[in-house]
């Protein structure tokens, strides 16, 4: 059975979405209306989820980082401090929005919306379960890179439109940081694309189906007889680099000199008060959680549990929870790093991106291309694993005899 057959029944779209659509059309509802309702419903659910996750993330960050610092976090507002974020949001809502008189009104108003809009858009392509995502683009990774570049524009606009030298400096520094870390981030994202032979995020997740050693973070995995030996020279390094670049893209410590209050009086957010400031923060947390979700999708097997297809088959309605758990673990790792490391000096930050991460990520891409062409690879058209059918892989067959080398064990049963 190929993966295509598998997903035909255990798939949110094929199993629930399409039958519902057909039933509604059968009742006489026009097809375009059903599609429109689906899209609107999906968008509303995503927006609600983002807000909910951001509130939980802020609460978790404050409580967790407090425990790392030998103190409790906020525990007075609501049980365990759960309503603290709500209280903060209400406070920010009630504040007056002050626009500097000399500031360009369009730019000043537009900047937070651009940044938040871009970070919300990246959530649209995340696959939550088999067949469950807002938009199943087959160029999902390209879409992510495109929308990941917009916050740089938003920050420039915020810094320039505030007509404040500190904001301008903060904005410029932030932009340089974003752009510098987008380069290794983009290159490292190519690694799972090469291993999965597809840019569609749903396809990348499907390529990691099955047992734990199929996850891209453990690639390459060599088999000695039936025993898998993960040798994660590509996967782990790519994953760690993706996380580091994610930290830098979302202005988290140790890359948070943009928000270093003691240095830049707030950086590009200086002239923003009330809800606009809240939008910046919302965007930062939404981005952090998105980095966690995308890291899980690209490297940690997405919504697969890693316990084999049979198990995933059994609990398939719960698979979105698996993805959320992985993203939460990555987010907690981010908070842990925030509680541990001091801030990078600005030139150290730039050096790290250009002199350390960039060469290594280029090497990673070459290695993963080599591995993908030599070894077993994923065929998105048939939804199964097959051996690569070029001369090089035939050669590697002979190399890894006597057991027959890379073999049918990796195809789906």
């Amino acid at each position, binding site marked *: 059975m190929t993966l295509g057959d598998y997903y035909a029944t255990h798939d949110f779209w094929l199993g629930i979405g399409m039958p519902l659509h057909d039933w509604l059309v059968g009742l006489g509802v026009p097809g375009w209306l059903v599609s429109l309702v689906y899209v609107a419903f999906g968008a509303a659910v995503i927006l609600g989820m983002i807000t909910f996750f951001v509130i939980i993330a802020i609460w978790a960050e404050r409580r*967790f980082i*407090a*425990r*790392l*610092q*030998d*103190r*409790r976090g906020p525990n007075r507002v609501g049980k365990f401090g759960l309503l603290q974020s709500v209280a903060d949001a209400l406070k920010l809502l009630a504040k007056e929005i002050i626009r500097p008189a000399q500031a360009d009104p369009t730019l000043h108003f537009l900047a937070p919306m651009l940044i938040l809009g871009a970070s919300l858009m990246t959530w649209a392509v995340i696959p939550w379960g088999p067949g469950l995502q807002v938009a199943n683009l087959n160029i999902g990774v390209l879409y992510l890179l495109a929308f990941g570049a917009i916050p740089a524009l938003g920050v420039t606009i915020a810094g320039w439109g505030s007509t404040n030298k500190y904001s301008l400096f903060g904005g410029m520094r932030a932009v340089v940081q974003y752009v510098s870390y987008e380069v290794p981030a983009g290159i490292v994202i190519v690694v799972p694309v090469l291993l999965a032979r597809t840019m569609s995020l749903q396809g990348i997740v499907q390529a990691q189906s099955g047992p734990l050693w199929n996850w891209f973070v453990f690639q390459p995995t060599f088999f000695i007889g039936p025993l898998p030996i993960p040798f994660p020279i590509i996967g782990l390094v790519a994953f760690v680099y993706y996380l580091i670049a994610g930290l830098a893209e979302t202005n988290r410590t140790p890359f948070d000199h943009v928000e270093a209050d003691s240095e830049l009086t707030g950086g590009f957010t200086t002239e923003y008060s009330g809800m606009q400031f809240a939008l910046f923060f919302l965007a930062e947390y939404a981005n952090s959680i998105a980095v966690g979700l995308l890291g899980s999708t690209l490297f940690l097997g997405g919504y697969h549990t890693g316990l084999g297809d049979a198990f995933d088959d059994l609990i398939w309605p719960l698979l979105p929870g698996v993805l959320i758990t992985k993203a939460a673990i990555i987010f907690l790792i981010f908070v*842990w*790093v925030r*509680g*541990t*490391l001091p801030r990078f000096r600005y030139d150290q930050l730039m050096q790290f991106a250009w002199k350390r991460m960039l060469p290594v990520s280029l090497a990673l891409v070459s290695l993963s291309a080599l591995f993908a062409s030599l070894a077993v690879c994923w065929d998105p058209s048939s939804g199964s694993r097959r051996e690569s059918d070029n001369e090089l892989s035939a050669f590697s067959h002979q190399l890894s005899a006597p057991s027959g080398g890379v073999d049918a064990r990796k195809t789906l049963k």
Partner: protein
Amino acid sequence: MAYGLGVAKGMLTTISHLVKPPITIQYPEERLDMPIWTRGRPRLIYEVDTGELRCTACGACALACPVDVIKIEQHPSPTGKGKVLDRFDIDMAGCIECALCVEACPFRAITMAPDFEMASTYDRASDLVYDMYELRIAGTTEIDAGMEHIQGVKRGLRGPGAAAAAPTTAVAPTDYDPLTISDEDLKKLPPAERAKVYRARLKASGWQPPTPS
């Protein structure tokens, strides 16, 4: 491959704090056990047996106060000897709790007690002015010990405290029960150990910090 080892060590240190209990004291449900020498509100000491204030209305504390919050009124005693204290007000709104009044007093009549919960919401101009009746505190050995770091060990100018004279150089007892130790043995202890005994006795006597009204 030393890259990242420092980061990893730091991260392990941080995560080890996750399993240790936090050191936060959740005020006001939990309160810290303040030591007896805590600088809080100044209080006038009265002898435990007679109930008389040790204060002789000399005015040294009012002179020493850098913010002039001590107001003293007195008149000559009808017996012709000494002065009678009419009014002794301390305005806690201005008191900076510097303990210069404690240092200046020649009679060990004023001390800093560990009171700090004096917040009031009505009429701050008059609610925070404490008169000599509100400032009374019993002159127990613990209170005198709380002044030791300012006034030195009590030499006994008046009252039964004169019996607990200067510390001797005798050998200090090593194991003792802080609540039942005798006064002679108490004199032989070094000041740090004496402070422990005083603190234990204070706790055992059930002294509570004043609750905010």
